């Protein structure tokens, strides 16, 4: 466009010269040329988009495959640690809608899949089926646990606030996220010293993710009852039934009692996050680190105060 304006300006200066005719012809042809270029550009963008989508879908398949590999699903309890790397990578490429669609698929598969009539009483077959169902349950909770926050926000907005097609699966998904993160924070993060700024930031971010879901009832009290997870269809195992809040309105499990978690994190600032590991750094870096620590501490205190 700038080039066209430039050409027209030059034309104004040299009006009347023979070159004008040639320029007129060129100027007349430009819109058509540009139109063609735009079409080609659109087509290229569409092509790139399709390629990106194909690459993304390919990645999704690869990460799901990684999660369900035999060696990663061998030990599913108490926590399916082997499935976590795949769940983290999947979370990077999966969309918010696909995440709830996948939740729906796994919940239905756990519910519906049965051995054939002639195998129905074979203990080995029953064990295999329940193991596969447990792997799918573990996939639901690990994917929910590690999906980036902005995608969880989108699920809340699209499916719950705006009453989407997957509203029920969204409740299951949010419950699965709190269920997994609560345990992960207690068993893996808070059970070890939080002795670096990055570890502290990770702890805070994960507890804030739980906090956000716990506080959805502030938008509508009905969410206290609706956010739950009922997974049934196991052949020998008990159904898994978890709710966010108990009937008396309190947190249903101390694992996701975020006021308690925030208090523990506050303690960790003094106990674990001492400046000793920064002693070798230059003074300006130490000052910067201290500033970050103070900001994080204020963030934790604000989160704790929000429950008072």
């Amino acid at each position, binding site marked *: 466009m700038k080039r066209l304006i430039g050409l027209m300006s030059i034309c104004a200066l040299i009006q009347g010269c023979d070159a004008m005719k040639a320029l007129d012809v060129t100027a007349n042809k430009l819109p058509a040329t540009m139109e063609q270029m735009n079409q080609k550009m659109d087509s290229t963008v569409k092509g790139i988009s399709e390629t990106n989508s194909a690459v993304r879908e390919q990645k999704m398949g690869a990460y799901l495959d990684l999660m369900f590999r035999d060696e990663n699903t061998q030990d599913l309890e108490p926590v399916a640690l082997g499935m976590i790397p795949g769940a983290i990578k999947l979370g990077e490429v999966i969309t918010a809608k696909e995440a709830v669609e996948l939740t729906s698929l796994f919940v239905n598969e756990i519910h519906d899949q049965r051995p054939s009539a002639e195998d129905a009483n074979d203990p080995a077959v029953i064990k295999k089926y329940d193991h596969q169902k447990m792997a799918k349950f573990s996939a639901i909770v690990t994917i929910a646990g590690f999906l980036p926050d902005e995608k969880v926000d989108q699920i809340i907005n699209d499916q719950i606030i705006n009453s989407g097609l997957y509203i029920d699966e969204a409740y299951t998904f949010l419950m699965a996220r709190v*269920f*997994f993160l609560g345990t992960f924070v207690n068993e893996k993060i808070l059970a070890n010293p939080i002795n670096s700024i990055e570890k502290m930031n990770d702890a805070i971010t994960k507890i804030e993710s739980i906090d956000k879901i716990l506080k959805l009832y502030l938008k509508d009290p009905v969410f206290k009852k609706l956010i739950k997870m009922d997974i049934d269809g196991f052949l020998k195992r008990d159904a898994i039934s978890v709710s966010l809040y108990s009937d008396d309105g309190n947190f249903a499990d101390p694992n996701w009692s975020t006021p308690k978690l925030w208090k*523990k994190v506050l303690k960790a600032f003094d106990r674990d996050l001492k400046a000793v590991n920064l002693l070798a750094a230059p003074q300006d870096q130490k000052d910067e680190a201290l500033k970050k620590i103070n900001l994080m501490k204020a963030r934790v205190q604000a989160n704790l105060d929000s429950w008072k």
Partner: protein
Amino acid sequence: MKFSGMILSLILLSNISYAGIITTDQSDKTIENVKIAHSAIVTTDKGDAKLDLVGSGIFVKKVLITNIKVFVAQMFVDNAGKFVRTPEGALNSMDDMNMAAFNLTYLFSVDGNKIMSVISDALDANNVDTDNEAIQEFLDALKASGKVSSGKTMTIVLKRNDDGTTKITFESPSGQIQEINGDKSVFKSIASIWLGNTADDGSEKLKASILEGK
């Protein structure tokens, strides 16, 4: 091993005390193959003291959907007749005790950090000041236990001194003994881990089992 190496090892070992702080008798009763005693003998500076079993139980922790059997606990006191077997009265009845011992046999491998974290939760549930020097030292001792393997036992003995202060004797699963001196409140604070407000369902069931005298 060369002779000089053996001498060096012996010198190093001599700085650490390895001896059981309680001796228990054997009964026929077991929980998860752990033998439950009738009584325990604690050696003190004033001679041996006999403590009687008031209760035992298993601590089960739920992680996601899995119930993990973590340890079998046995609790002994020197004045069992005064032990109050109610959820509200049990902890306060510790005021009538001069000695108490808690014997924990692990059924599941647990890291020292995790043990410290669980005990901290129990102390928090009872509003115990974890900045108290003796409590802090006790938590550090738990943390220093390192990884506790299945089948190993840790023992905590609480003794009320003549001046009312508390002496905690902690024996780690590796047999290392540490003595910690604290103020009067420390006796009940440590006992509150098993007899006070419970931080989770597993602790609640263990407390109930002890109160029932199992």
